[in-house]
């Protein structure tokens, strides 16, 4: 573990000495909770409609696919008209597009960012690499199955997929959302132990709390 995360002795201003355990004192340790849908179906439907019509993508390009997503916002493809836009912070984003191959180092950041998004949240795997490793199938440092680590709602195959197929993927996601089937966040909470196990298996220097609030 990094030295800054190890417990340390600190002297307070009154001379009293005490221990600070960063992981305990600076991070929330609560596990993720399963959040049920709204009590009234009609309200949940309204929410699902809104969620489907307002998809905010986290601006985090994890691999080479990131550069392929730019055209989506150009006049030619104009994803805005589907209510899709980018947000710079995971707190405000709903959709995490894993854009291409995912190295272990990046996976750690992806997990952090994913966990900082709010329920409901969606993951789209973009390109072959997220599905089975693609051309990095024999790499020492690239994961092969994204759904081992995060709940994935939609995969978009291709290397790279064209913007049209991306749009298609997003439409598919919208459909799932509207049908109330995009419950990845709750799945993640429910199968938290399994996901963590998988994540920790590849991330050897796990230096963060189990769940990054």
């Amino acid at each position, binding site marked *: 573990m990094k030295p800054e995360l190890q417990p340390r002795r600190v002297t307070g201003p009154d001379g009293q000495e005490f221990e600070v355990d960063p992981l305990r004192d600076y991070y929330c340790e609560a596990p993720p909770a399963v959040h049920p849908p709204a009590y009234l179906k009609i309200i949940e439907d309204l929410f699902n409609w*809104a969620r489907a019509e307002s998809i905010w993508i986290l601006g985090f390009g994890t691999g080479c696919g990131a550069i392929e997503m730019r055209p989506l916002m150009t*006049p030619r493809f104009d994803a*805005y008209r589907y*209510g899709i836009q980018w*947000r*710079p912070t995971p707190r405000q984003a709903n959709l995490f597009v894993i854009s291409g191959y995912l190295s272990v180092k990046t996976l750690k950041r992806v997990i952090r960012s994913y966990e900082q998004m709010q329920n409901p949240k969606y993951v789209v795997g973009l390109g072959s690499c997220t599905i089975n490793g693609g051309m990095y199938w024999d790499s020492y440092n690239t994961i092969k199955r994204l759904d081992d680590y995060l709940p994935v709602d939609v995969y978009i195959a291709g290397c790279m997929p064209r913007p049209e197929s991306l749009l298609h993927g997003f439409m598919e996601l919208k459909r799932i959302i509207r049908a109330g089937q995009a419950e990845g966040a709750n799945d993640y909470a429910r199968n938290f132990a399994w996901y963590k196990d998988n994540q920790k298996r590849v991330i050897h220097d796990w230096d963060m709390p189990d769940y990054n*609030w």
Partner: protein
Amino acid sequence: MTFEWIQIPYALLTIFIVLNYGLLMTALIAKIAARVGRRHGIPIWQNYADLVKNYGLRSSITHGVMFYMGPVFRLTGGVGLLLFVPTIYGSVMFSNLSFAGDLILALYFVFFGTLGMALGAAESGHPYSAIGITRGLSQVTMAELPLALAVFAVALHYQTLSITEIVAAQQGGFLNWTLFTNPLAVAAAMLAFLGSMMRPPFDVVLAPQEIPIGPPTEYHSSYLALMQTNRVLFPIAKIVVYMNLFFGGATSWPEFFIKVFLIYMVSVLVGVVFPRFRVEQSIRWFMIWAVPIGILAIVLA
């Protein structure tokens, strides 16, 4: 003017109208901007979807009490400002709570939301929030100055601080508007207006790439929804002040809609043309261009 209970439903009605108008108008403006770029742009009801979605998010976190109250302060500021200013001139229904205070109340209440928001954002402990607040506060101190000068010039001009009386003095043809009777003050005020609208070239506060969205970095879910509501209400409330002071106020809702839209478009037009200033650049810009006009306005008033 005194308080009567009937004013509460009237006020709610005002809020309802302005909120819906604002949601549609901002979408429309985004759509216009998109059309300029040969895009389709967002659907006209996009803002409703965003708002509902954010209210509908299931989970949320909190960094503490002030974090919780920040958006409440913010929206209170917006709603309060809207209610403290008479919306429609000559209408008893839509004079709202303007009996509580005059122009000065409106001028200072603007800061209420800013302060609360800054406190809330700061409690998140996020350095980007703090940087955003620094930038915002630094910029707004200088941007508000021409407005204060212009307001002072107008108050001198009409010898009153009551918004209703100022609007009354501008009735009877558009040549009576302050815009024409005191163009310097209006010029100063409109420059200040650009600075307070969080649009380019004065939007470095939010700088989405550099300091992810600035002060509201940590805000999400219903907090964000409250702030979005305010983002719709507050500029309109501010524009209502401008409209009343400089553009003859509005005697009916259609006139209100048109004037608000046009005034809003000023900042949009400037925004799509100019690139972004850094904070110190915008401070200097206000100091060199806007403040002297304001000073000229009060000296000549």
